[in-house]
């Protein structure tokens, strides 16, 4: 079924992505309701919420099936509008649950942001990002060492959505950088340059995960104008740093076709908004540390983590030795059940051979960047499978299938969160520091070095 994502029409792929987003939002509601325990004996409130959520979920699944069927004669825009309508009720239920049982954002989310974001522009060395639910956004935070990010509580458990929580941080940073950026694109208005810079910084720090989140969320919001203006710039930045993945190529194709279909090209080509991306990137490189940057290496790690996610394994660490080689050595020494050789224990003791072999099965921790990208790759590949899974069922089977699906998704999310915590412990035990405050020091000549630029015209990612 994975091929559907790569060969289906762009309308199908677009609808799959939006419908999948809607289904994941409903998964969050079910997880939340499963966790809710109101005061003892107040079972009727939870029961009525359960009944309401069940009827909403069944309604969405059956309506989505109708909207995504080949018989649907509605236009792409009308179909997206109907899917968006379901999202409104999902959001209302999320707010209701939050009011009944307020939820603290996950500590892992704050850790993710603090480990990803250089906080050099904040005033204090102990600066921190904290995450709050959207309804608390209006509160003014009295400390200038704290940057408050907002994320609706319905997304607190969904790691792929955590990328959204970086947006206001990136915008604040872009505003701080504006005096330096102005010369790179003098014809652009400050608002437009700051907005573009914030997104480009997102791609520089988080790579394809940021890009994918941006494209999917703009599709869900049906803000096609913003999508076709910003997406090509982000794709160019990804290409510049050789971090394009096959999923990004597909999303880029969707945006291109969408803009042609909806006659949006004229809007994106306004002269006052054409951005000199390489010039912008050159300035940004003076401010982004190499260790904070998303690189081709992270894409390679994410692809290996994706295999682990598919196998139901945590994604906190990777092997760097070839385990087959260790097996062959053990075999040659007569230390496997399949060996015909008799081990020479005296020689093995003298050589300390077993310690050398043990050392090679050790793993090294991975960072949040590659974990987030692996989660996004998995989500993008899974989307068509999820929809076809529900479409192939009888109406009577849908509820049972839904329960199995959401439990599986809940386990996947827990595994991901556990991986983030485990990687943090692993890093500390390996003697790696967890720095939260990083300042870019310009090089001696004041120029940051850039990697060799690739041909953007070819649109051929180096990785695939």
């Amino acid at each position: 079924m994975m091929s559907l994502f790569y060969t289906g029409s762009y309308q199908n792929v677009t609808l799959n992505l939006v419908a999948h987003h809607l289904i994941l939002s409903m998964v969050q509601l079910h997880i939340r309701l499963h966790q809710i325990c109101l005061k003892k004996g107040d079972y009727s409130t939870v029961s009525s919420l359960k009944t309401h959520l069940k009827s909403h979920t069944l309604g969405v699944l059956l309506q989505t099936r109708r909207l995504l069927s080949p018989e649907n004669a509605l236009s792409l825009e009308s179909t997206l509008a109907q899917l968006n309508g379901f999202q409104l009720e999902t959001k209302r239920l999320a707010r209701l649950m939050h009011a009944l049982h307020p939820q603290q954002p996950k500590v892992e989310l704050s850790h993710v942001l603090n480990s990803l974001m250089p906080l050099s522009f904040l005033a204090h060395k102990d600066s921190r990002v904290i995450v709050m639910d959207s309804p608390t956004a209006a509160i003014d935070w009295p400390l200038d060492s704290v940057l408050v990010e907002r994320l609706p509580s319905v997304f607190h458990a969904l790691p792929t959505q955590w990328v959204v929580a970086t947006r206001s941080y990136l915008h604040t940073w872009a505003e701080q950088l504006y005096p330096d950026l102005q010369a790179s694109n003098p014809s652009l208005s400050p608002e437009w340059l700051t907005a573009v810079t914030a997104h480009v910084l997102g791609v520089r720090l988080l790579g394809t995960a940021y890009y994918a989140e941006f494209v999917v969320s703009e599709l869900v919001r049906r803000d096609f104008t913003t999508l076709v203006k910003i997406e090509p710039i982000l794709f160019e930045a990804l290409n510049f740093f050789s971090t394009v993945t096959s999923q990004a190529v597909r999303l880029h194709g969707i945006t291109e076709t969408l803009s042609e279909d909806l006659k949006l090209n004229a809007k994106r080509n306004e002269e006052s908004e054409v951005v000199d991306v390489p010039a912008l990137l050159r300035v940004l490189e003076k401010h982004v540390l190499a260790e904070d940057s998303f690189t081709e290496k992270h894409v390679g790690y994410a692809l290996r983590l994706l295999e682990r996610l598919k196998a139901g394994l945590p994604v906190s660490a990777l092997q760097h030795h070839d385990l087959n080689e260790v097996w062959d050595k053990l075999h040659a020494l007569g230390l496997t059940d399949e060996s015909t050789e008799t081990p020479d224990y005296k020689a093995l003791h003298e050589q300390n051979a077993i310690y050398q072999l043990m050392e090679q099965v050790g793993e090294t921790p991975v960072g949040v960047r590659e974990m987030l990208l692996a989660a996004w790759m998995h989500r993008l590949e899974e989307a068509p499978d999820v929809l076809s899974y529900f479409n192939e069922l009888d109406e009577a089977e849908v509820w049972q299938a839904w329960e199995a699906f959401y439990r599986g998704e809940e386990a996947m999310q827990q595994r991901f969160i556990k991986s983030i915590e485990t990687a943090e412990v692993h890093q500390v035990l390996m003697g790696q520091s967890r720095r939260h405050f990083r300042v870019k020091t310009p090089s001696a000549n004041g120029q940051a070095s850039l990697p060799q630029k690739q041909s953007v015209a070819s649109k051929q990612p180096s990785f695939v």
Partner: protein
Amino acid sequence: MTIMNESQILARLVHPDPEKRLIITPLIAPNEQFGPTSLDLRLGTDFQVMRRSNYTHVDPLDNPEHLQQEMNELWEWIRVPVGEPFVLHPGEFALASTLEHVTIPLDLSARLEGRSTWGRLGLQIHATAGFVDPGFSGTLTFELSNVSMVPLPLYPGVRVSQICFYQGQETLLPYAKKRFSKYSGKPSTAASAFYRDPEYARLRTALEEEGRRVLV
């Protein structure tokens, strides 16, 4: 069925056949973790302690949906960041789990044991449930108790336990596929789901039919 030595455990960790491969991840410092017939496992970051003040008891014959809600309320979930301790006081009981995810092949079974270093300080890592079935996959749950007279600070990542393995014939009842298995695939600490044992469903039905109990 004999206990496996370090070479046999190591060979299973790198076995080319995925069905025979033992998975323990992350393996942070194998040279420190391997013993002659065991591998040390570490303490994870999430703990659960009982909030007893609202309950006189938990009756397994209650409505299972209510019981699930009661268990959510009864157990308080505590996440401990790296570098900070979870303090287990004398006489206290808490649930925790391994930092590592463990997948056992179908022809191996395992026992989780405490390390003597911690035993000498009064830490017990399981009450009675140290056996791990073939086919289990997930984190292993610790039933921590402090039988000493002083509080024990427990830091995530420390090696509090060791696991040893036994090789036998391949089972036809792997844990994950066993009917009524309740803890397979759990990525973090799992509280008891005792009320999901099928005998309670039969007891509930029998008592309802006899009119001796009405489920609400």
